[in-house]
């Protein structure tokens, strides 16, 4: 495969960027730095403002407040075409009346390139995304995955300082989604691109990101690496949004040198204190951290429901802490509904959080 020249990727700096429509705040003022050459995901439920934020970076929406820098340049007031960003749309937005090659060359011709040269470079980029020889087709004559690649090629060919993705995989089926997200990640790392990626799918975000920005109610809930967000969520929202989690009330009994002794019903666990002092706290337990053993040991529980899922089993345990959702590999002996068990917890999957 041919590669495109590296090194045009720029750092994106959002300084107090916000958007309001009349009284409604679509995005509250946000400070965020997206390092050059990294892939940053904006993750959140629908209506959290992530797409609006992306569109403000693209220049499709104008920020109501704050400044936006790409590289060293203040682009807050620049129109989309002058920002040196390109975007892959959720619907791909391939021009249906133009051939694939014309679609990919469109941006180059807009930037003033000769048609012949533009077509040559478009051809090269199509090769990069593995679509050599498809140039003469119309977009409607290609499959969903191929259309997706055309959309990526069309954005990539401009060698933008920042590449933006707006839920690019939501129109694909599950299997294709996995392949495409790996391709996008590989391409980003190979070319060292700065990418801002919007999605509402946490597993997609975990899979592709250098850094994830979780958004909620028009503001940032937490930003960090995928591992940080999963193991050290700042709030119940982030914990439950980043994968499954059981929310329980717990009691910090004592804190010594940053380690808290936490009472979860009858269980006692030692956890990082994360600044909590003794008293009632919120805790989240990952389903894979709940280990079932023989009754009498640990937290007494009854199996309320057991579901076979192929690679693993899902259980719902009734305990004094409330109902707990747990998973266990299928190779372990199965539990049946009504069975009495004793639960132990892997401290690595239990975190104290703020509400």
């Amino acid at each position, binding site marked *: 495969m041919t590669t495109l020249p590296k090194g045009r990727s720029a750092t994106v700096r959002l300084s107090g960027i916000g958007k309001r429509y009349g009284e409604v705040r679509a995005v509250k003022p946000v400070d965020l730095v997206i390092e050059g050459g990294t892939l940053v995901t904006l993750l959140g439920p629908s209506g959290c403002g992530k797409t609006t934020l992306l569109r403000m970076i*693209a*220049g*499709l929406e*104008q920020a109501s407040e704050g400044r936006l820098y790409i590289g060293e340049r203040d682009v807050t*007031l*620049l*129109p*989309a*075409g*002058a920002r040196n*960003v*390109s*975007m892959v*749309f*959720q*619907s791909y*937005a*391939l*021009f*249906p*009346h133009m051939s694939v090659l014309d679609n990919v060359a*469109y*941006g180059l011709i*807009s*930037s003033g390139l000769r048609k012949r040269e533009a077509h040559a470079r478009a051809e090269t980029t199509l090769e990069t995304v593995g679509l050599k020889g498809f140039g003469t087709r*119309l*977009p*409607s*004559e290609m499959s969903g995955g191929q259309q997706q690649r055309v959309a990526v090629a*069309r*954005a990539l060919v*401009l060698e933008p300082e920042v590449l*933006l993705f707006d839920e690019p995989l939501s129109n694909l089926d599950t299997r294709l989604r996995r392949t495409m997200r790996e391709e996008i990640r590989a391409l980003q790392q190979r070319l060292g691109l700065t990418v801002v990626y919007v999605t509402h799918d946490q597993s997609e975000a975990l899979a592709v990101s250098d850094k994830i920005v979780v958004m909620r109610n028009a503001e940032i809930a937490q930003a960090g690496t995928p591992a940080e967000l999963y193991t050290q969520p700042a709030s119940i929202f982030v914990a439950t949004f980043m994968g499954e989690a059981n929310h329980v009330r717990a009691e910090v009994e004592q804190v010594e040198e940053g380690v808290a002794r936490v009472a979860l019903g009858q269980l006692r666990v030692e956890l990082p204190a994360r600044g909590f002092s003794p008293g009632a706290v919120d805790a989240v337990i990952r389903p894979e951290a709940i280990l079932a053993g023989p009754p009498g040991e640990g937290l007494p529980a009854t199996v309320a429901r057991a579901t076979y899922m192929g690679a693993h089993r899902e259980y719902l345990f009734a305990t004094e802490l409330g109902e707990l959702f747990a998973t266990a590999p299928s190779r372990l002996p199965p539990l049946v509904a009504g069975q009495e068990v004793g639960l132990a917890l892997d401290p690595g999957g239990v975190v104290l959080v703020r509400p």
Partner: protein
Amino acid sequence: MFAGSSLFFWLLAALGALVLPWHMQQEGVGLAGLMAFGQADPEAASAIWQALAHGRFWFWPVVAGVLLALPGALPLGPAARRAQFLLAGGGLGLVAIVAQGLAIGIGGWSFAWMEAAFGPLDDRQFGIGLGGSLAFLGCLVLVTDGLALRGLFKGDRFVSGAVGVLFASILLFTAWPVLNVLGQIFTPQGELDAMAALGTRLFDQKIWGLGCVTASVNCGVFWNTLLLATSTASAATLLGLCFALIVTRARFPGRRAMRLLTVLPIITPPFVIGLGLILIFGRSGVVNQMVETVFGWELGRWIYGYNGVFLAQVFSFTPTAFLVLIGVVEGISPSMEEASQTLRASEMRTFQSVTLPLMVPGLANAWLVVFVESLADFGNPIVLGGSFGVLSTEIFFAVVGAQQDFGRAAVLAAIMLLLGLGAFLLQRAVVGRRSYVSVTGKGDVGLPTKLPRPVRLVAFAIAIPWAILTVVVYSMALAGAFVRVWGRDWTPTLSHFARAFAIEWAADGRMMFTGGAWNSLLTTIQLAAIAAPITAAIGLLAAWVLTRQRFTGRTTLEFSLMLTFAVPGTVIGVAYILTYNVPPLEITGTAIILIACFVFRNLPVGVRSGVAAMSQLDKSLDEAAITLRASTFRALRTVVLPLLKPAIVTALVYSFVRAMTTVSAVIFLVSAEYEMATVFIINRVINGDYGLAIAYCAVLIVLMVATIGLINLLVGRRKLGRRAAAPVGAPA
């Protein structure tokens, strides 16, 4: 691109203010006349020369504004400073152009209070011409450029310019004339002052009289109009519903042919039906003559008056109602009716309790559409009305009659305007609630329920005879072109065509169009061909701005665009002659006034078909183009426009055809030089020369069908590949 830069528009403004002749030249402008700097005749000089050499001080602010804008037009310096110069200079220029135009006319000061304040002015000026128009356009765009530089409209100069031009053109060609008409109500009359004149006009017995109820005199024209419009709307809606039900819900071999009916009102001049009725029921009509020979009865003139106009309008507007109602009936999701049937409702109960209630908003909409059409109709009442006056004909007689009472015309026009606006607002309210129409993107499965037997019988019993009658009326109307004198001398002849469209060869081999109709026909085609692309362009631009851009004033723009639809043609006609026969925009008697009238009368249709098509076009397509560094204009040209071809065809066809068939507004605006086909025909009808009139109508219809084909061929189809070939519905 230089042609899109601020500097280009500054040069335009400068050219208009400094070089070109400011005022309109009676004899047109020759090449030598273009250099108007230094002209000895003040009327032929440019603005700055008029100010320098002829003491016309009122041009100094115009010149000052243009010069002040120059630093902003040059691509130097910070944006904020440039914006200030552009806004200040362009704004001053605009205000100065408008103010001087309104303040000083052919008799010096235009307003008495100005004369009192500044003393008499012993100078005068005529309407603006090339220089003035260019300067106005240039200054306007400089202002919108300044606004865009300030960051409004997302900093997009193209959008701000488009919005500016749209607003200015609607203000100039719709709002100003209509407001002017309303102002004319207050013109003093004789020795009465403004209020007294208003009183006499407004409470005229001829408008509001109810004499027909108590005695055998005519009622006021207001009541006549209201009665006619209400009854026409009710009858046409009922008939239209029968047709729509048959076409969409019944198995009937003639369904396709029936759909053709919907095309008729678009391509026929509005008075063809009136002519047909005269040929059948008139004094020398077929029916009258037969009855007289067989029974010896004199049927007389019953067709002239309310009866005839009502019949003609129902014939004319039933297809319109039909067109609206087809969409309504087809819009009802079959799954609702299927649900009703699975809930053990009979066919009749399903129709009564599900189908019909779901159609109510659509029926109301059709009713209001016909109501407005009837209100604005001029052709049928003028042909058949006799002494039965309606608002549109009364306005016409007030203007062209012996009295030349513009005040009275203005009052009548104002009443008509209010009726039209009322119906328009009601319609918006009704259609706005149309949440019933259940067109989902998923494609409904299921079959529409068959009509219950009694309903089907009634529908057939009403619709079939009416359809036959319509065909008879149309064919009678056309047959009239081929006999010598209808009712007296039935000899077949082509002489009417010859009189209208004869071509002879002169001795030197030149072709000579000796037929009487050539002049008006060629003028009509020429003006319609100029107006159609302008209408389509402005309409689609407006549609794009309305659907794709968010800016303050968007709803105002949308509302004022749609409002032009509610202004009846007669009102526009009166408004135009009242407004444009005096400076600053003295275009009465020119082709410009006719073109402007066509463009702004038909604009809403262009906008509507554009909006309909645009809302089916994924917004991210234009956004993709923008992020791919296309300018807004390039995105529009290379992405949006090619995908909008069906809407372009609709807009072009409609505006061309309407320009050829319209009567109501145009009849006030024609001049000896620019005579329109429809007006020519009406005049023949009024003189009793039916043969030629009908021959002319036939030629028009053939011509329009040919044009529709040609436009379809020229614009071409969208190329979308096989899977995306879903048709984009573009309502006419």
